[in-house]
C-alpha cells in the first residue's frame, strides 16, 4: 500500500539552505564592514587581514547569531507545544504567564534590590543572577498554572488562569517599579527591551545545554502530541497517558522559556507567530514534521529580526523586542483579517 504521508524533503532542504544564508548575512552585517572572504577565514580558523575582524566575528557576531538561533527555535517550539496542549491558536509562552513569571523574577532582583540589601545586588546584576531569577520566576508561575491544571480539567480555563497570572505579575512589577529609583528602573527597562548580544561563550553553553535538555523532552512527546490533536478523550482511548504528556510539555516549555528569557529578555510574538507561519507553509498538523520545521523557521526569523535590529551600517542597535513585535503583530492581524483558518 502507498503511504500517502506527504514528503517534505524539498521544503526542509530549502529551509536549511535559507538558514545558512541568513546566518552568513547576519554575521556579515554590523557597525564594522568586514568582507565576506574574511568572515569565512575567521570562522574556519584562517588568518584574517586584521586581527580585530576575527575578534569581532568570534567574540561578538557569532555568539549573537547562535543566541538568536536558540532563542528563535526555543520560543517557537514552546509556542507550538502550548498551542497543541491547550488546543488554542492564541496559546504561547506569553499567554500562559511563563514569560511574565521570568520577568517577575528579574524585576524582583533588579527593582527589589534595595530591599534585599547591597551585598546581594552586587551579584544580582551579573547575567547569572538574572538567569537564576528568571528561571525561578518561570518555574514558579508554571507550577502555579500546573497546580491549577490538575484541579481544572478544562483547557480553556487553564488558559484564562495563565492570563490572570500574567496580569498579576505585571501588576507586581508595576508596584515594584513605582517604588524604584530611576537607575534601577532604567536597568530593568533595558533588560526588558531584550538583547541577543552580550553573552559570553560560557553563558551560551549554559543556554545551549538547557535548550537541548528541553528539546530532548519534546522528542519523546511527539507521538502523544499527535493524538492530542483529536482531543483528550480520544488520546486517552488510544492509550496516551495524558497527564504525563501534559506535565512533560509544561516542564520542557518552562525550561526553554525560562532560560531564554533570562539571557535575552522577554521576547514577544516569536512563540505565537512562528508556529502559525510554519503551519501555513507546511500545511500539516503532524508534529513529526512541525517540530523541526518550527525550530528552523524560528531560528531564521529571529536571525532576520536581529539583522534588522542592528540597523546595518550604523552604530545603533534597536531593541530586539521592538523588532519582533513590529514583525509579529502585523502577521497575526493579517492572518485574522484574511480569515484563514488558524490551526492549533
Amino acid at each position, binding site marked *: *500500500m502507498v503511504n*500517502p504521508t506527504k514528503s517534505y524533503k524539498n521544503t526542509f532542504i530549502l529551509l536549511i539552505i535559507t538558514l545558512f544564508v541568513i546566518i552568513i548575512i547576519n554575521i556579515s552585517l554590523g557597525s564594522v564592514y568586514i568582507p565576506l572572504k574574511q568572515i569565512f577565514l575567521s570562522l574556519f580558523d584562517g588568518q584574517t587581514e586584521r586581527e580585530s575582524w576575527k575578534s569581532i566575528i568570534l567574540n561578538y557576531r557569532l555568539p549573537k547569531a547562535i543566541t538568536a538561533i536558540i532563542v528563535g527555535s526555543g520560543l517557537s517550539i514552546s509556542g507550538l507545544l502550548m498551542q497543541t496542549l491547550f488546543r488554542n491558536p492564541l496559546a504561547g509562552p506569553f499567554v500562559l504567564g511563563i514569560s511574565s513569571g521570568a520577568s517577575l523574577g528579574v524585576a524582583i532582583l533588579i527593582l527589589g534590590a534595595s530591599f534585599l540589601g547591597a551585598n546581594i545586588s552586587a551579584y544580582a546584576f551579573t547575567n547569572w543572577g538574572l538567569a537564576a531569577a528568571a528561571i525561578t520566576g518561570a518555574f514558579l508561575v508554571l507550577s502555579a498554572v500546573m497546580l491549577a491544571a490538575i484541579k481544572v480539567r478544562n483547557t480553556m480555563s487553564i488558559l484564562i488562569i495563565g492570563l490572570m497570572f500574567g496580569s498579576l505579575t505585571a501588576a507586581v512589577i508595576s508596584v515594584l517599579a513605582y517604588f524604584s529609583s530611576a537607575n534601577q528602573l532604567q536597568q530593568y527597562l533595558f533588560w526588558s527591551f531584550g538583547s541577543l548580544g552580550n553573552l559570553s561563550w560560557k553563558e551560551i553553553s549554559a543556554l545551549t545545554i538547557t535548550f537541548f535538555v528541553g528539546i530532548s523532552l519534546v522528542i519523546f512527546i511527539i507521538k502523544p502530541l499527535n493524538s492530542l490533536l483529536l482531543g483528550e*478523550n480520544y488520546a486517552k482511548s*488510544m*492509550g496516551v497517558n495524558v497527564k504525563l504528556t501534559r506535565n512533560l510539555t509544561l516542564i520542557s516549555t518552562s525550561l526553554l522559556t525560562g532560560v531564554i528569557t533570562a539571557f535575552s529578555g522577554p521576547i514577544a510574538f516569536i512563540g505565537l507567530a512562528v508556529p502559525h507561519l510554519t*503551519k501555513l507553509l507546511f500545511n500539516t*498538523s503532524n508534529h513529526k514534521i512541525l517540530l523541526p520545521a518550527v525550530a528552523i523557521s524560528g531560528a531564521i526569523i529571529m536571525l532576520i529580526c536581529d539583522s534588522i535590529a542592528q540597523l546595518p551600517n550604523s552604530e545603533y542597535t534597536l531593541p530586539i523586542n521592538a523588532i519582533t513585535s513590529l514583525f509579529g503583530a502585523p502577521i497575526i492581524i493579517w492572518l485574522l483579517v484574511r480569515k484563514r483558518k488558524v490551526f*492549533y
Partner: protein
Amino acid sequence: MKLSTKHIIQVKDLNIGYTSKKEVKTIASNLNVELDAGNLVCLLGKNGIGKSTLLRTLTKVQPSLKGEIFINSTKLETFNFTDFAKIVSLVLTEQLPDSSLTVFELVALGRQPYTNWIGYLTTEDLGIIQSAFEKTNTKHLMNSKCFELSDGQLQKILIARALAQNTPIIVLDEPTAHLDLHHTINTFSLLKNLASEFNKTIIVSTHEINLALQLADELWLMTPNEFISGNTEELIANNSINKLFESDLISFNKTLKQFTINNS
C-alpha cells in the same frame, strides 16, 4: 478472578454516576449484563438517563461507583492504558478540535497503541490502515483534509480510525446524531456488517429506535426504573420496549415495530 471466557463483556451489580467531595450521585444502579462477541448492541434510553455515563464507565473513562466490569474475563481496573486501547476503541460525539490532519493521518493515529515511541508505521500497520479504509469504503478520501469532509464522511472516517485500532470491541456514542436518514442508515448497516462479518462487538448508544429494532442483535434499555438487556426479538415480544418512555403520549406498537402517538 477468571470467569467463563464466553462473554466478552460481563457487568455485575454495577452502579454508575459521579462522586464529588460531598455526595455520591448515582445515575443508574444494579446493572447486570452479559455480552458475547460479534454482537451489535444498541443502547436505548431517553435523554439524561445515563447512556453516556454507562459508556464512559465501560470504557474506563470514569470509575464505577459499585460493582464489577469484566472485559475478556479480566477486571476493567487491571488494564493499563495501552493494553485497554488494544481491546476497546471509541467513536465519540464530541467535535474534533480544528487541525489540518489529513484523513490518512487521522486513521493512522488509530495504530498508536501498537507503534513505537515515535509512531513509525510498519508494513503491517499500513496494511491494517488500508483494510480499515476498505471496510468503510472511504479509500478515495485518504488524501483529503479532515475539515473538508461532510458530517457523514467524517463519521465513516472516525469508524475507520476505530477499525485501525484493531480492537475486538468498538464503542460509539450517538454516532448518527448529526446525520441525515441516508447516512444514518449507511452508518448502521456498516456497523451491522462489521459485527456479523468481522466478529466485532459493537456497542452503540442511539436515539434511532426504529433502526435499532431492525438491525441490533441485542438491546440494552435504560428505563427510569430498571436496566433491561436481551435479544431484540424477545424484548419486542415481551413489550419491554414500551418501558423506554413512560408517557401517555406515545406507546410501542408491536405489529408496526415502532412508537406511535396515542389517539386519545
